[in-house]
């Protein structure tokens, strides 16, 4: 919708009116007026507001910045270690009883490091651009091992690991008798 000012301006110009609005914009060509912040070519089209056809200088990020690659790789390597405090807190909240929620948490916490350790090759591919990739790989695996150690500790405090002698009681065979004995009161 054309602005009323614009229309007014257009209407006035057709009348050849000398009255000009302060904020009116002229979209039609008028060589007598070269003022305003409009610069037009010899073409007859008026550019919209704010348009400039000069190219803008490029200020995008450099993809191949070495520092940043290193940073990202270290982020990947230290990921598991950052998970440990959160896991600690989850373990503390879920308690030592044996019920469905703690078991689910323990299973999840145990399974994730193991899965990560099993897909080490995919991780190494992620890390291949950095020049400290072996160290980062080592840190990653250490972090995962610590995570699984945490899960095992949780199992131990819930009493699920067979560390006591009562857990092996069912496997003890009754001892073999060496002597045969019999008799009784004299009949």
């Amino acid at each position: 919708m054309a602005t009323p000012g614009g229309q007014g301006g257009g209407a006035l110009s057709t009348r050849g009116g000398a009255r000009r609005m302060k904020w009116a914009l002229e979209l039609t060509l008028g060589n007598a007026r070269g003022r305003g912040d409009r610069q037009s070519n010899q073409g007859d089209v008026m550019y919209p507001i704010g348009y400039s056809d000069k190219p803008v200088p490029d200020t995008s990020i450099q993809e191949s910045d070495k520092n940043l690659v290193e940073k990202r790789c270290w982020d990947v390597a230290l990921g598991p270690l950052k998970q440990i405090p959160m896991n600690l807190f989850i373990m503390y909240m879920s308690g030592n009883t044996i019920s469905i929620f703690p078991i689910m948490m323990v299973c999840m916490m145990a399974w994730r490091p193991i899965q990560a350790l099993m897909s080490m090759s995919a991780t190494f591919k992620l890390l291949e651009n950095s020049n400290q990739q072996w160290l980062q790989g080592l840190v990653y695996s250490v972090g995962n091992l610590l995570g699984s150690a945490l899960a095992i500790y949780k199992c131990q405090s819930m009493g699920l690991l067979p560390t006591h002698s009562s857990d092996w009681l069912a496997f003890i065979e009754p001892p073999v008798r060496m002597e045969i004995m019999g008799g009784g009161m004299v009949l």
Partner: protein
Amino acid sequence: MSKPTSLFVIFFSLFVMSEAVFEDQVGKFDWRQQYVGKTLFAHFDSHSQSSKKLFLATDKNIFASFNSRTGELFWRHVDKAGPEGTIDILLLHGQGDNSGRLLRSWDTNMGGLNWEAVLDTGSFQAACFVAMQDTVKHVAVLKKAAISLHYLTNGHQKWVENLPDSDTVQYQAVYSGGEEEVYVLGVVPNSHLTIIAYSLEDGEIIKQACAINLFSADSGRRLLDTTVIFPLDLNGGKPFKLYVHAFLKKDDSVGYRVLVQTQDHALTFIQQPGRVVWTREEALADVVTMEMVDLPLTGTQAELEGEFGKKADGLFPMVLKRLSSQVILLQAWLAHLWKLFYEARKPHGQVKNEVTIETLSRDEFNLQKMMVMVTASGKLFGIDSKSGSILWKHYLENVQPNAVFKLIVQRTTAHFPHPPQCTLLIKDKDTGLASLHVFNPIFGRKSHIAPPALPRPILQSLLLPVIDQDYAKVLLLVDDQYKVTAFPSTKNVLQQLQEMASSIFFYLIRSDQGNLSGFRLRKDLSTERIWEVVLPTEVQKIVAVNGKRPNEHVHSQGRVMGDRSVLYKYLNPNLLAVVTESTDAHPERAFVGVFLVDGVTGRIIHEAVQRKARGPVHFVHSENWVVYEYWNTKSRRNEFSVLELFEGTELYNSTVFSSLDRPHLPQVLQQTYIFPSPITTMEATLTEKGITSRHLLVGLPSGAILSLPKMFLDPRRPEVVTEHSREENLIPYAPEMPIRTEWFINYNQTVARVKGIYTAPSGLESTCLVVAYGLDIYQTRVYPSKQFDVLKDDYDYVLISSVLFALFFATMISKRLAQVKLLNRAWR
């Protein structure tokens, strides 16, 4: 606690887990048979000719009434066992029974007591009814020194008179002839007879006569047709006593019925034409010992067993064998189905469900077994444990009244071609000589194997786990020269014995000398004494000894404690529990001693003395515990005490147990509880693998059998409850042991005078078969941990299978419908 909460708690504590039996379950798994014992007096009810009652008084102080048509009991009265309850005479005129000090009158119809009169003490001689003009109104009782006359209606004494010269004359009989006088007959041995007549009214002596002639009896006219030939069971011994009832029949001829008592205490009732109407085996009222033997396998079952027994001979042949046995099973099942179908079409009356020996075979869970019972009269019975019917009987001749019996099972039915074999050792107490009777427990027939001759008195016997090539266990018999005879004494057995002789030990206990001695077998089958323990007889007398049952299996080697450590049990298979009672019976000085002695080394592992305690002591020795029951004379109550033995938190040697290599003594824990009732006998339940918890079966004098859980008799029960003891499920200690009536295993089928309880494992781990014997025999199944390995009785197969099929079809149909719908939507 506030009042509503406490009310709440009380309300909820009433919802106790109760065990009850449905009314239609009565008699489904258990049966009871009632007996009376050896008859002393019998009378026929002579009210009318067609009366059906028969009255018996037995040596076990029981007075009973039988139905003479069928032999069933109408009612019976069990009096106190022992000499106070002895029945001296039974008189019949509608009422009457006399027992020494008490004169009782019973109603013949219902068995109710009419009246009871207490007589003066004095040894009883005779009694008779005194009639006065054809009506019997008085009873005269003759004692050693006095005669008394009582009213028949209420038992009051009319008069009592002393007999003259009662220290020289033995008065023996009383007679009343229907006039006003009562005659008393006395005998002076080798001299003369005395007759004294008393007047009925006041007891004055009317006349006294000395005569040599007895009064003449009525002329006995020999009646026609009195000889009768009746089939007498040859197996049953010679007839011992006859009770005859003669009556006048409607057509004025004389008829009679005879009750025959044979030497084996069986009663046979014979009607006139020589027909045996019923037989009662009263020898079963006096069972001495019994064993339960598995039934034989059927042909198909034996095949299946054979498949697992033989050595593996390759994968492919075993697969073939398995397939062939499955085919055989399928054929057998189809035949069974066909038979069921066929029998269902026949009318019900024709289908008979008799149990005969030929059709006996093991059922699926091995719950039906053959009970072999040995009775004091020398008769052996084979009884089917499911129905209680007697399948075979065998009477042993020449068994002395005070013989001692020991029954040993040498070969079970598990070894298919060889027949099962049981041996009965019968020892005569007077001469000491013993004899062996070898028989097949399933059929009762004497075995072809000849037992060895035993010229010398036998002291004890021992059953070895050593087997000969016929899979029979070897029985060793020790004679009084301490030489050993082996029962299947083949060369193979003798060779094995020679190899193993150094590890076979005996123990012999003589309670009259207070001496326990241990012997070891030498290669030439003689023994040498290796240890001796003497308990002086001036102080205490050895009452009983018990080892552990040989087929008992302990499932776990220790107890798990609250902190997850293990307290290992001291399982010594050679341990003996010896119970002694003090000779001094004064309540302040009496004691009961329990000694735990190792039978191989003679070492006293533990001794416990219970002061101010008196017997009779009943005890059970099993696994690693001993439970004993005694009477506390100071507090005047019955108490239970339990002793448990533990090795500690570490096992000394977990693979092998040798009594010769056990340096450390076990730790002993003991606790005592108060029991509200005296007990007559006690036994522990037994299962094949020992996984089920143990219950103690206690026979109470009220006729009930209580199944007491062993966890109440646990010496680790704490006085102060901690978290660890809660973990272990230990009941806090309370000195009273409750008797909960839901623990009675024989709901209303009371068993009178339980003398012994026998338990046997069945094929199911949860079930234990129990037989209580005494005056009656009661058999049932006990489930100490409930039936954890069987589906419940009224499992709803139909509902579950129909729901399963319905859901399956619903799933199929809705899957198909969903596919169709998706397809239609894709094409829209």
